[in-house]
């Protein structure tokens, strides 16, 4: 009887040790999943110069002259913003370290990028099957449908890119790149992106333009790397971090003209 109990206890201890060993061995420790997803979306997927993206851009170009000009321009601006953000993350996210922020945002990033990709496929398929064009009722009818898909596309991208910025800001692997400057820029971009909350896209053009300017003006590699050695820039960013919207630099910062 006693022997049986001892044997069972030993088996339980061995099982517990083996479980700990296996959990430790196979525990996710790197950011490969997200890095590979971003790379595939930028290099092979919907952000690359493929025929799907061209079809959507052609449609938006054609529609630029329509009554929904503001909405179309905003859509085009955001599309270009995602290009810039995608390039930035493609280059940087592969070198970020695994952390709890990564763990909690991984699902949002991958699902967001997948959903955006699905919305892009849906839009292109719709555009390709409604090629008549040339009159205002066609324009109004197609845009009514495309804008819903476009909104889903924007929403999914915003979700993914906001989560990517949290992961990047939390990373420790490359402190010289993940400095106050990029963190503040990405935080501002993320706040702007997350403020899209309805299908009413009119009136949000300024915001989209700011996001676009911030992404293009501030995420240039040489500026990201150069920040650490620029006293003036450091002082301005510190002022923004300390004083937020009260900072005298804040408005030019969010306008992308710091």
């Amino acid at each position, binding site marked *: 009887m006693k022997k049986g109990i001892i044997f069972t206890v030993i088996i339980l201890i061995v099982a517990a040790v083996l479980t700990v060993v296996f959990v430790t061995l196979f525990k996710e420790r790197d950011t490969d999943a997200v890095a590979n997803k971003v790379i595939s979306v930028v290099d092979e997927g919907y952000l690359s110069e493929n025929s799907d993206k061209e079809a959507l851009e052609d449609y938006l170009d054609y529609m630029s002259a329509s009554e929904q000009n503001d909405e179309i321009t905003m859509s085009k601006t955001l599309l270009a913003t995602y290009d810039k953000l995608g390039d930035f993350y493609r280059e940087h996210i592969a070198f970020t370290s695994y952390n709890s922020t990564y763990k909690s945002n991984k699902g949002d990033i991958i699902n967001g990028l997948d959903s955006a990709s699905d919305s892009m496929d849906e839009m292109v398929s719709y555009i390709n099957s409604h090629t008549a064009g040339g009159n205002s009722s066609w324009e109004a009818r197609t845009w009514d449908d495309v804008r819903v898909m476009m909104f889903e596309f924007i929403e999914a991208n915003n979700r993914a890119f906001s989560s990517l910025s949290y992961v990047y800001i939390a990373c420790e692997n490359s402190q010289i790149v993940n400095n106050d400057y990029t963190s503040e820029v990405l935080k501002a971009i993320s706040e702007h992106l997350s403020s899209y909350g309805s299908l009413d896209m009119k009136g949000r053009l300024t915001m989209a333009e700011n996001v676009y300017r911030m992404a293009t003006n501030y995420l240039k590699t040489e500026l990201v*790397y150069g920040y650490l050695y620029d006293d003036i820039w450091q002082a301005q960013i510190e002022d923004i971090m300390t004083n937020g919207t009260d900072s005298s630099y804040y408005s030019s910062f969010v306008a992308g003209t710091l």
Partner: protein
Amino acid sequence: MKKKFISILALLVISVASVVTLAGCGAGIKVENVKASYEAMTETLVSYDSVLNKGDESVYRNTKDYYQISYGEIVDGYIRSQDENYVELKDYYNSVFSFAMSYVDENIQVITNLLDDEVNSATKKTLKDLKDSIDDFNESVHNFVSARNRLDVYYQNYGSTASEEEKMSRLRTFKRDYVDFVDKSVQMSLSLSNSVEATGILDSVEHVRLTKNYILNKILRAYNELYILDIGTFNFKETTPTDTKTRIENVLDKLQILMNEYSSIMLLNDSALKELTSEELVALKDMMNKFLTEIDVYIEALDTLNVRELCVDYKNEMDEYLTHNDRAEICLERVENFVNVSLPNFLDYLDDAVRV
């Protein structure tokens, strides 16, 4: 029966834990052991002083030729005549080796002057690694000198009759041994810098020189990794010319240019060094830590890129290589950014921070 079993189990656990803990702490290794290894290594170098001619110590701080390596009359002649196939032996391999050795010779006393009772636990943990790396280097000296002698004998006997291709093949064989030798010297200097840091001596403003040299020694990895460890192991020059090869060549050219900047900071004499305040020292070390992390990312990018595979197996065709390694492009971009932007920026910063 139960008590016996538990006692045996406890004994086993304690034994394993003790072994692991002692091994982890480097217990058993004393300063004396490090000193003995260093002295043995010095004796080895002295015994080969016709090949590894140590420069005059009163002069070496003003020249990067701290260790003059004699490659034999014929190869030295090629180097003097600036033959591009040979000149890098002196410009690059010899320079990296000299910087690593000058760091070791100038800083080893920080460790060997310690009394075992004074050694803190952080330093104690680094001593085994330091001793091992000195022993490894010591061993590599023999291999290097043999390789150098084989090269010299080959050139003396066949230098005038062998084809250019044959000579290049022989030179590449020698470079492979040279790569190992330089790498061992860099590893030894890095181990020493870890030990020096662990003593806490770098926290004192009185030791600006030690701090500056510590930083430069850590940067040595950036030069060693790509130019010597990666490129030095195959015939890069003869690989297929493509845009990707041009990009790698540009990175190598830039590294060579930056070596001069590195040298000028390394060779600053004491009178040219600033006296730092404690705040300035903290700021410098903070920036250094950030940059060291950046070097880690650069090394990681190089490892993932695998230059040899790209250049040799995939003939410098990035598009084809991407089907095998989908991170190759971003890794190459990261390497370019590090060499073109981060490294020069940091060297400029360091120069401003320490030069009077």
